[in-house]
């Protein structure tokens, strides 16, 4: 089936496994690279490298990245084929910049995890696969790269594919893994199927991405996290602005305002300033209610039977140097609700190798762990698997205001 929806993809994997080169190859071979960009890459290749055209420079756009030949932060690139549009986040492999990988992968439908066929699955490969699965990518495309350097050996490919697939299957939130034998440098099996791997019968990476069905069957009830109350001066209009999550919402539907628990009927819906009768998931709308009840920013309109809570547990990706421990305090943001959070407990830390829970008093930069939080304000929370919008929150460091943790809720008490 041809899809005209946009697919969001993020690269992942260890340093030097060829992520930026792969994205450069995809952009180049889909004729997305403009002549002046290619000329600039060739010039930079002469300056920073051995002169051979380095397609990684298409996304490694910062001076520090070019000087060191590494990726520091996410680059977002856009390309389209006749079949669909793609938004690509090319993320860094260095452990030091895992926070930027989290940023890039958080909105991705598919993570392309690269592995150097010579080195196999490394610690950072595991970390990225773990993070991508926690963040809820719908599939992992395992690109076993540099196949030309292992003589296109089918056994090497199978061994890497089996290793990562087995690892992902054992994760707390497993996702499907599809493996591709590729050479990002030479373009084999990236856009076109290569003759160098006659034993490989599957599609090229791009062919697979073009038909990947990222849509999720939504049967959860609608929710609207209220961003703002829209009140034009001199009129009676009162609308609640937000982006619709869950299912659809119609004029005439009954909704409950949480945490107050008061109910009313939807009397009108606007999108882009125009009246509509039904709003669908993802749409930025303004909803009016039949009754004059108290609704403020941070409240949630729900069509189902959700409740609010101040206690949640979840997986956290920790992204700052200062450790998180029992009793630590942060700001939190969940939907449009901002408040204070206290860590009630660090339940355990995830061991990347054994995947066993490890007792921990505190966790540090790049750790993945299970934590329990008490919040100063009630939120309408759901497990992340059930509702993306209801199941995620960020923790913000009180001292620096930087975003410190990404939390995927597992239990809302």
């Amino acid at each position, binding site marked *: 089936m041809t899809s005209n929806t946009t697919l969001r993809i993020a690269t992942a994997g260890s340093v030097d496994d060829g992520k930026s080169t792969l994205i450069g190859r995809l952009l180049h071979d889909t004729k997305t690279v403009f002549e*002046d960009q290619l000329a600039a890459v060739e010039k*930079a290749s002469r300056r920073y490298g051995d002169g051979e055209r380095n397609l990684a420079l298409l996304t490694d756009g*910062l001076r*520090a990245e070019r000087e060191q030949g590494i990726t520091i932060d996410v680059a977002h690139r856009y390309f389209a084929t006749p079949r669909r549009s793609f938004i690509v986040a090319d993320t860094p492999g260095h452990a030091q910049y895992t926070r930027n990988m989290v940023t890039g992968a958080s909105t991705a439908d598919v993570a392309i995890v690269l592995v150097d066929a010579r080195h196999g699955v490394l610690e950072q490969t595991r970390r990225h696969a773990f993070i991508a699965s926690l963040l809820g990518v719908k599939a992992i495309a395992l690109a076993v790269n540099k196949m030309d350097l292992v003589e296109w050996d089918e056994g090497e490919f199978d061994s890497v594919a089996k290793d990562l697939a087995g690892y992902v299957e054992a994760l707390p939130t497993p996702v499907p893994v599809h493996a591709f034998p590729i050479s990002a440098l030479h373009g084999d099996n990236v856009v076109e199927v290569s003759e160098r791997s006659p034993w490989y019968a599957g599609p090229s990476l791009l062919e697979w991405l073009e038909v990947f069905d990222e849509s999720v069957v939504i049967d959860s009830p609608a929710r609207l996290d209220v961003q703002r109350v829209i009140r034009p001066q001199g009129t009676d209009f009162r609308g609640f602005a937000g982006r619709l999550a869950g299912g659809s919402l119609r004029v005439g539907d009954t909704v409950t305002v949480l945490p107050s628990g008061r109910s009313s009927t939807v009397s009108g819906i606007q999108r882009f300033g125009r009246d509509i009768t039904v709003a669908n998931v993802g749409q930025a709308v303004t909803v009016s209610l039949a009754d004059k009840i108290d609704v403020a920013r941070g409240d949630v309109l729900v069509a189902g039977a959700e409740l609010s809570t101040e206690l949640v547990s979840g997986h956290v990706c920790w992204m700052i140097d200062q450790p998180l421990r029992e009793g630590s305090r942060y700001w939190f*943001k969940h939907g449009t609700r901002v408040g204070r959070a206290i860590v009630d407990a660090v339940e355990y830390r995830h061991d990347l190798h054994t995947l066993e829970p490890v007792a921990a008093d505190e966790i540090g930069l790049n750790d993945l762990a299970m934590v329990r939080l008490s919040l100063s304000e009630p939120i309408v929370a759901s497990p992340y698997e059930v509702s993306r919008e209801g199941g995620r929150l960020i923790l*913000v460091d009180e001292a620096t205001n*930087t*975003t410190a943790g990404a939390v995927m809720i597992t239990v809302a008490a």
Partner: protein
Amino acid sequence: MNATSSPHLESLADEAVTIIREVATECENPVLLFSGGKDSAVLLHLAVLAFAPARLPFPVMHVDTGHNFNEVIEYRDAFVERVGARLIVASVQESIDNGRVVEDPSPRASRNRLQSVTLLDAITEHGFDAVFGGGRRDEDKARAKERILSFRDRHGRWDPRNQRPEPWDLLNARIRKGEQLRAFPLSNWTELDIWQYIASEQIPLPSIYYSHRREVVARDGMLLAVGGPVTLEPGERSSVETVRYRTVGDASCTGAVRSSASTVEEVIAEVSAARITERGATRADDTFSESAMEDRKREGYF
């Protein structure tokens, strides 16, 4: 939206509206940068839709280099009046007159880089804590690295090696007094998306975006309009060409492209087939050095 719309465009518009609402509500004193260019026209259009039927809850600001195309200034004033916004003009000429910046006396100097000082001074003067801009990640390799909500320290500086993580769309707008945020609701739009949205929403643009006859001089691979800040140097000859502008900026460094595209549909066809990026084709300031955009952004530029 009308029949030329698509799920792709609509979802970009939903995303932009959501970002605009979120930043405008979390921050105390935002402002939207409006240059009269196509990206800022789309941004202002979406900002108006975001708060309808209420009025736009923040002012718009133009950093005026004093080297603008007359058509663009007329358009700017008409557009702002039509949507009922309050316009603040921050003038680079005033910054020069006050001695805040010194203009490069060479005949080919551009005022583009001076804009950063004028912008930062205006942000301080008005106490803005968040500034919306129409920057797109597909414009430049440094822009491709930018967050949707980008933190700037008290000096207005961008630190590309130490950006805040930005998981999902949970925008973290917490800052201390004197620090600021730059917000880019059009981050994920491409040049083609912008034009298709302009067609779909019938957004008016300055006439210079469409094909017209103009006296130009070829310089540094660009076709610069003769008159205003650009004067002929010895040995240069001007000619009258059929051109349009792919980007609209300071007239001293924004080049025209030869084009017969006189309608939005013809422009879309032209952009779809383009083999040169819009900045590569039209901005002398960005081709000046490999990291020109990154360097300007570190200084506080958009």
